[in-house]
């Protein structure tokens, strides 16, 4: 019995000694760099417009110290653990960090590759310049439009004003669809130039078109759109920075979820 007590006593002493040993190893020094102090003092000066007094300097430093002490004591109590605020905040910080650490300089190959992979995004679309006669659906629009087409001297004046006007200059198929209705641009594709064509139906009525100019679309040279490509490449890098990072370190983690959880 006595023996056992003694053993517990020895164990107790050991724990005590280890504790002291560990504690003495813990860094109780607070290092404040010159730079940190100078930048605070400079900020003070720029705001107030004079040198701070010794008192004021010591107050600035004291605040730094106090904050550091409270911070470390909180850490030693484990207050940061399971704190959603801090979790989110740290996750956000590393997000910003990863996004900012992207190299702004890309190799020429990287840029060319990116451009080639996304060529279609930079395609300059077909452009049409045309005028049209509009026949509102309020009164037999198709018949009137057909009359206009059939009338060889084109002096026919029975058309209606169109809400968005008569003439459309250098308009892409996207814009044509947005002005006349989806798929309307198909009527212009491969159509003859400088002659009346139609009648084509929109949701507003019928239209006869007269295309005067057609500029085929093209893939611009990389040099011509270099800035835009760089903007997009940067954006892509920013977007993928986090997912790449998670991919990179994610394999080291294993996720354990209760397989029986009912949701």
């Amino acid at each position: 019995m006595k023996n056992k007590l003694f053993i517990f006593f020895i164990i107790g002493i050991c724990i005590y000694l280890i504790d002291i040993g560990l504690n003495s190893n813990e860094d109780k020094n607070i290092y404040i760099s010159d730079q940190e102090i100078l930048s605070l003092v400079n900020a003070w000066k720029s705001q107030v417009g004079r040198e701070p007094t010794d008192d004021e300097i010591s107050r600035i430093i004291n605040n730094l110290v106090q904050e550091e002490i409270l911070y470390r004591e909180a850490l030693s109590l484990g207050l940061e653990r399971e704190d959603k605020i801090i979790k989110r905040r740290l996750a956000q910080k590393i997000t910003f960090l990863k996004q900012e650490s992207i190299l702004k300089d890309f190799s020429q190959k990287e840029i060319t590759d990116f451009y080639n992979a996304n060529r279609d995004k930079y395609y300059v679309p077909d452009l049409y310049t045309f005028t049209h006669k509009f026949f509102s659906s309020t009164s037999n629009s198709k018949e009137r439009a057909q009359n206009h087409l059939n009338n060889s001297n084109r002096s026919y004046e029975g058309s209606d004003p169109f809400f968005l006007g008569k003439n459309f200059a250098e308009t892409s198929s996207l814009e044509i669809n947005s002005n006349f209705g989806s798929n309307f641009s198909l009527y212009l594709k491969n159509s003859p130039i400088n002659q009346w064509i139609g009648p084509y139906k929109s949701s507003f009525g019928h239209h006869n078109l007269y295309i005067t100019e057609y500029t085929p679309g093209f893939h611009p040279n990389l040099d011509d759109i270099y800035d835009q490509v760089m903007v997009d490449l940067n954006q892509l890098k920013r977007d993928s920075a986090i997912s790449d990072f998670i991919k990179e370190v994610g394999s080291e983690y294993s996720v354990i979820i209760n397989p029986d959880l009912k949701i």
Partner: protein
Amino acid sequence: MNFKSKKLLYLLFLLPVLYVAQLLIIDIDVNKKRPILNIFKLMQDDSALEIVDFSVDKKTVNSNLPKPNKDRNPYYGDLHVHTKYSFDAYVFGITASPDDAYRYAKGDGILHPLGYEMKLREPLDFYSVTDHGFYMGMIQAFADTTTDISKKDFAKPFHDLNRKDNLTVESAGERSDLFSSIIGAVIAEPHPNWHPSMIKAWLTKNTQQALKSFDYDIHKSAWADIARSANEHNDPGKFTTFIGYEFTTSTDIEGGNLHRNVIFNSSEASIRPWTRIDSLNPEDLWTWQDSLREKGIDTVSIPHNSNGSNGQMFEMESFLGRAIDQGYSDKRMRNEPLVEVTQVKGTSETHPLLSPDDDWADFEIMDVRVGSRPPTYSRPSGGYVREAYLNGLTLEFTQQGNPYKFGLIGSTDTHTGAGAFDEFNYWSKVGLLDGDAENRGSVPLAPENRERLEEYMAAFNQPQSTITLEQGDYANTGFTQWGASGLAVVWAEENTRDSIFKAFKRKETFATTGSRIAVRFFGGFNLSSIDLNSDNLVSESYEKGVTMGGDLISDGDKTPEFIVWAQKDKNGASLQRVQIIKGWMDTTSGRPSEKVYDVACSDGLDVDPVTHRCPDNGARVNITDCSISQNVGSSELKTLWRDPEFKSSDKSFYYVRVLENPTCRWSTWDAIKRGFKPREDLHDTIQERAWSSPIWYIPDPSDVVVVPLGGTVPIRNSN
């Protein structure tokens, strides 16, 4: 005691007194926002006035942009979009970035937090991401949420945050918890007065810095990212973006929502947004905008959800309860030329109680204060634009100026980065909370969902969160009063930032409920000389009259004439009728009045000259499948209208309302898609519509107050 030591003693005595005085000044100024001796102001440097160039180096390939159209084109956009940088969006599951939002506007699909794709049927022409300015980007901060903050004086100005936008949490309990802790963080303590951050806050006029929960660097970087994204996606000639944010303020005691969006007209902007932490008073926002304008940065602020302001958005007195005067009116109009009249959280044109004779007034009415807990009735008077226009005339009548001479736009206020404009493809706006039909109350709740909802909502100060109807129990948390609305439309020469912004300032804008209706509106005294069927109708109207947003100055006793021309949405229902809404101030009685005139009817029908109403055109909706009558209604309506009850001495305003044939409301679509009947206590159908900015008739030319709006407001006499 000799003279020298006496002086020293004085000095010693004086030092603590000076110190205390300084603290007092800081305390009064930072915490209570009272004016203080100007001499101390000299030490201050306004951090909110520091300008940063956020522009991105970009040349365009297509240097030959389409020529500007002098007759102007309609451009459709949304000026009210939240992304993950808004503190309330983030906790509701939104992860869409500003880049995602702009991609969506250009036509790409992006994901809703519930996993489905959101995609526009047709891309938009302009877009602005407008995250909440206060706590922008700061999802969480260092606040100690266990502190009993309500006892602290400092916390009091922030108490009404509890009634902030979108506190309508009704989904996962965890989210409510998280949300509450954010509110806790917002009401965080400030640093003690001796703290360097406190002094810094005062010296830089940046009250946020005084809060323990605030990290200025994170805040600035979020703002910089929003500005960067806007500039990167701006594509002159094709797609326009604006740097913007929401100034989320409210009245102190009743929680009257006074939210506004601030839109910048440049790639440069202030280093940080001016927020409710700087001041709750909108007049201070305008002062800041005026100061920015002096530095060459032009902005407009656009109020929204006046319907949920408890009548305080368009009051007859100022925020501080002072009388409105000419100075106030000028300042407000200089900075707030537009109002967002319709959005997800209801439409603010008028209310059945305010316009009992208007058969179309009961439209998408949201009758609670924005974000109120528990949901609290919002007083209609003071919250709707038609009444504000009338009140503006009254204020002008009593020589106080007219602070309510604004134009109209719509927008969505989506918090998912993606606006929901279509009734048949609707996801409301706050992500997980209203992203499915059960939670937004259009179909009955499954029993387990009902239990969960009631539990969470009870914890969130909504005692009654469900309602029992014919087909079962429904969520009844307010989302049924929300809707698929709206769009901001401008008439501009070209799709560039400058051209569109100028249209904002001259109020040449109209609002729609999400439909791409287009409407022209001109007023003048010689418009009958124009042939309505001429190709030059528009250019001649510009020449001979004024358009929406303008002043029509009297020409003797001549009766004004108006030309209206509306075109339907090519993918939407046909038009049913066009109306002109007139408001006027009777100079003999001093009494304001309003009247709704039908001016053009569909299908060649005629307006009844006595009732001023169109006959029924017969358009119907089949509620079982939402199909609508074919071949009824018009693709366009055009007319010349003369005011039949004109009195040349009455100040008046005229604006256009265009009505589509009825179609199914989103709640009906939701129900029938899932095999239910529409809920019996909601409107089954709506009439999508558009409202133009008004034209104001000014009887006495000397009455015209030319508000300098950056030199972009032409005052034209029609002679």
